């Protein structure tokens, strides 16, 4: 049976399951030592949850191709959507395992609903209450989150984080958030513009062309960015900003909604459902439709996990609603 992914603000069971599952993955030692992965700082036995932080950071460090410093193996290029879909499927499987519920579906945060609120009211969304994700960081305490299930008083600690030079290091500190109240969450009109763009992506396959992928990732229009996915990262701030952003459980709620928007776009697609195809230049390795996606969880010679494989995931999960209104 395929899992059903629900709106976290409309499904109390999904909300509590997500919180319980994240805390369980955070408490689950793997025996993988940080120093064995070349991560500087005091050696730590990494939790299952932390491995996803490492995966995301490493993917962002793989330049595609290595001769340039812009497009990487998970962002600023066509593979952005299928790579994160693969990551979410992997996390969802871990949540199902620790919850003992093979049908558990990752919840999503429909952030454009909150983006319709006046700026001062956006942090008052039920998402940020004590029984959901907790709230903004406390400026008097280094922007640490002080309420909710991931508060500084809880067992939830950040164990690996990227510094200002982009180097992943071990730490032991509470989660940080720093809402950007002046920026505002994405409005629904931006989503409508993205969904109306029938071209998945286009040459030169960077952050510049106006395409569905770039609109949803949030790079265009460049003069007024960040948009959509990027805007949510920046609005939450704190640990949602660096390449180690999966440290904040809100990361997955954001990406689950991004994935839902992609699912809605795929359902209505009349042209190619993914570009580029395999005839594109080798410089686009990791981004072409049949290239293996970068993963620390699969062996280097496992070429099954491609963007094409991510285009039909109906046997694995679906959404309670694809209505993007």
């Amino acid at each position, binding site marked *: 049976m395929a899992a059903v992914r629900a709106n976290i603000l409309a499904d109390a069971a999904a909300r509590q399951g997500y919180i319980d599952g994240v805390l369980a993955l955070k408490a689950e030692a793997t025996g993988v030592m940080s120093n064995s*992965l070349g991560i500087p700082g005091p050696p730590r036995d990494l939790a299952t949850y932390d491995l996803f932080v490492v995966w995301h950071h490493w993917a962002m460090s793989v330049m595609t191709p290595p001769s340039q*410093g812009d497009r990487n193996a998970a962002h600023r290029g066509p593979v952005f959507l299928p790579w994160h879909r693969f990551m979410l499927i992997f996390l969802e499987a871990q949540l199902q395992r620790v919850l003992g519920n093979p049908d558990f579906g990752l919840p999503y945060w429909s952030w454009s609903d909150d983006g319709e609120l006046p700026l001062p009211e956006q942090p008052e969304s039920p998402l940020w209450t004590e029984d959901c994700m907790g709230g903004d960081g406390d400026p008097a305490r280094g922007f640490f989150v002080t309420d909710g299930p991931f508060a500084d008083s809880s067992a939830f600690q950040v164990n690996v984080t990227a*510094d*200002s*030079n982009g180097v992943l290091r071990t730490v032991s500190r509470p989660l940080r958030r720093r809402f950007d109240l002046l920026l505002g969450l994405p409005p629904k009109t931006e989503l409508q513009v993205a969904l109306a763009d029938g071209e998945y992506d286009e040459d030169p396959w960077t952050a510049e062309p106006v395409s569905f992928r770039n609109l949803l990732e949030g790079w265009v229009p460049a003069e007024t960015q960040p948009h959509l996915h*990027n805007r949510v990262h920046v609005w939450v701030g704190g640990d949602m900003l660096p390449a180690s952003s999966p440290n904040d459980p809100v990361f997955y709620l954001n990406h689950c909604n991004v994935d839902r928007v992609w699912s809605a776009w795929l359902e209505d697609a009349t042209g190619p459902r993914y570009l580029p195809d395999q005839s594109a230049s080798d410089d686009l390795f990791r981004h072409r439709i049949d290239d293996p996606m970068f993963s620390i969880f*699969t062996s280097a010679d*496992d070429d099954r996990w491609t963007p094409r494989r991510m285009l039909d995931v109906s*046997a694995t999960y679906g959404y309670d609603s694809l209505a993007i209104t």
Partner: protein
Amino acid sequence: MDDELREITEPSAYLPRVQAGEPPAGTHPHHGPIETVREAVYEGHRIRVRTVYAIEVDGRPVSGHLAAANDGRVHYHPVPNLSFASAVDLVKALIDAFPDDFEPDVDGHGGHGGSHH
């Protein structure tokens, strides 16, 4: 979930692969000035613009991976969801985003102050 996905998402299957993993070259600390190259083809002519950034904050180098796009905007990997009209704007955002790396000065300025917008 299909059987192949079920197999690879079992800890017994993936943990040995994680243990055997090698950090990509891009995760290693970078030292010295940051060089970025922009390339384009126009009217059959190959354009190449090489830019070198040597950025310091309070005399300490900032040395993460940086790229200038062909539209001139600057993207810095440690704040991956943003790009900036100028490198100065970028560094202001870094100071806000990484309070552990940029302690407030003796007068209490910096570190936690202001918005990057």
